[in-house]
């Protein structure tokens, strides 16, 4: 059996990579990808923690199923917004979408 910490470690790294992408990428779509990676890390966490002996495995799976739904919804809203933004601003470079400040 794989040790719990190994899975948690992978999830943490995945979360970290997602975070890096979120903070660094200029493309909105790439940022969304990063976010999805973070959500996947969360899912991995949940499954790891609920598939141990003595844990409520079905609960974990239900939660992750819901998370998948959330991720889909997120993608839908975010992507539609990106399209709309591109339509009016002709860019989806987040660094250029920084008119509002102060």
């Amino acid at each position, binding site marked *: 059996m794989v040790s719990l910490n190994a899975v948690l470690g992978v999830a943490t790294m995945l979360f970290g990579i997602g*975070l890096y992408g*979120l*903070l*660094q990428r200029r493309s909105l779509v790439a*940022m969304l990808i990063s976010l999805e990676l973070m959500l996947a890390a969360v899912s991995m966490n949940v499954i790891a923690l609920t598939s141990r002996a003595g844990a409520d495995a079905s609960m974990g799976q239900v939660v992750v199923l819901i998370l998948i739904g959330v991720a889909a919804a997120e993608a839908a809203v975010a992507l539609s917004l990106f399209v709309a933004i591109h339509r009016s601003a002709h860019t989806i470079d*987040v*660094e250029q*979408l*920084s*008119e*509002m*400040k*102060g």
Partner: protein
Amino acid sequence: MSGPIQAALLAQAAPLAASAAILLGLRRHPAAAAAVAIAALGAGFAASTYLVLAVANGSAMAQAVWLPMADGRGLAFGVLLDTLSTTMALVVSAVTLAVMVYSLGYMAGDPGFARYYGFLSLFAAAMLGLVLASNLLQTLVFWELVGLASFLLIGFWFDRPGPAAAARKAFIMTRVGDVGFLLGVLLLIRTLGNATIPELVAQAGPGGAFSPRFTAIVASLLLMGVIGKSAQGPLFTWLPDAMEGPTPVSALLHSATMVAAGVYLVARLHGLFAAAPDVMRVLLWVSLVTAVAAATMAMVAEDIKRVLAYSSISQLAYMLMALAAGSVAAGFFHLVTHAGFKALLFLSSGIFIHHAHSNAMREIAAHSPTRQRAATIGLVSGSLALAGVIPFSGYFSKEAVLATLGVHAGAAALVLAYLGAGLTAYYAARMVFLTLRGGQQHGSPTAPHPTLAQQAAATMMGVPVLVLSALTLILGWTGSWLAARLSPGAEPHAALELGAGPLTALALAGLGIALAWREYGAKGAARTGFVDRFPALRAFFADNWYLDRLYGASVVRAAGWLSRAARWHDQQVLDGAGDGLAAGTTRGGRMLARVQGGQVQMYVAIAVAVLVALAVWLAYAEGLR
């Protein structure tokens, strides 16, 4: 004893009521105002007379609590009737009455006529209150109020710059002394729990509760008030300037009564002052120097009222000298006679001024002054009294003072006092000659026929002058009566005992008059004094011994500088700090706003960084579990 008490209350209340009525209701009714004022003061005068007769010896006091105090009993105010206070009350009300009558003529037609009588009544009430007060704090209250009245009356013609400035100077300068007075009173109240005059005198005396040191401190503080009010020592320069007020006011406040309040205070608290011999020595020398110094200034003054003012300072110094040397009777005697002849001198000079429309003696001389009979009589007899020529009143009282000095003060003091007496005779005579004797008769050689109103005015002014002239011959004989009344145990001073002292004084007086005659009076005299030959000295004398300049250069300038410094500090430092804080806050806001830089990834990064910090902090604070 309720009769005298009621009389005393009446004497204070009547002028006060008159003052209130005039200032509040009769400002547009001059005749009524004057009538009310004179009637009220007449009542006061009658009451005072009654008091003098009723209180032949001993003392009576009636008090009511006026101010609740920490001790639970409170400060009681009331009237203290004894020989000293009743006599002073009589002097005050008499002179005031005379001045009020005189003013009917002098102030006739002035737009502020009613106001004038209102202030005058206020002064009378305050002065009588001061005299009759049973509590030293009460004395202080009225002391300040006469100061206020003095301010208002000096500045009576407030729309002229001179009187306004003079009033300001007088008020502030006397306040300097009053601060000492107030501190003294506070100190007494603090120690004694109250400031009832007989009690504090008793406590200061032998067997009393006060330590000598305490008595000395209190006495010197009170002395500051005396010096300020009686225009002594370094604080006298306000008095010459105070002559900017109407002449009757000068007569009443600034020679006869108010400035004598300081003398009265020393007499009133003589028991206390006597218990502080060092302070008395200081007072003695202050008054000696003042007497001579003021005389030198009078010698060179060109303005008749200023001459009289300096002479007031000088004569007040004589009174204080006597008190400092230990004789209440002599000092008070001189106070009484001085009140008479100085009021007379002012009122007479007022008549001249009224006609010549000038205060300058040489100017008056040009307006045929001798045509004013009453005034001429008054001026001459008053000056003789001032010069101390027998048998005028001044002679007797000054004699009493000098005699006291001779007994108690030592040779040096006596020499100075005699020097002063000689100078007094000189400047008195100078004044008479300068005023009365022949300038070229320009101006109004043929005076127009006086109207009826002018005649009435002349009468109003003439009668008091003549009465007072007569008094200069009478008051001199009251010395022994006064002495018996004020210090019954003491040996009565012989009025007409021509020993070495009186002869010296008379000789000096003669010398002074003769000198003045040679320089000013004789036909073809150069009409310049011997001092005029030394311009520097003359300037020194004429300029108040440069004291005003000294004050101007030191105290006034320092105050101005301090004030401006404080103002600068207030605006730049304190206010600047406040404004700076506000500006800094705004600037801080602008700087913080830069965090909101528009880069959304930065926002997320900050949030994540904070959370990382939280994780580390939690692990650190709670320990990894």
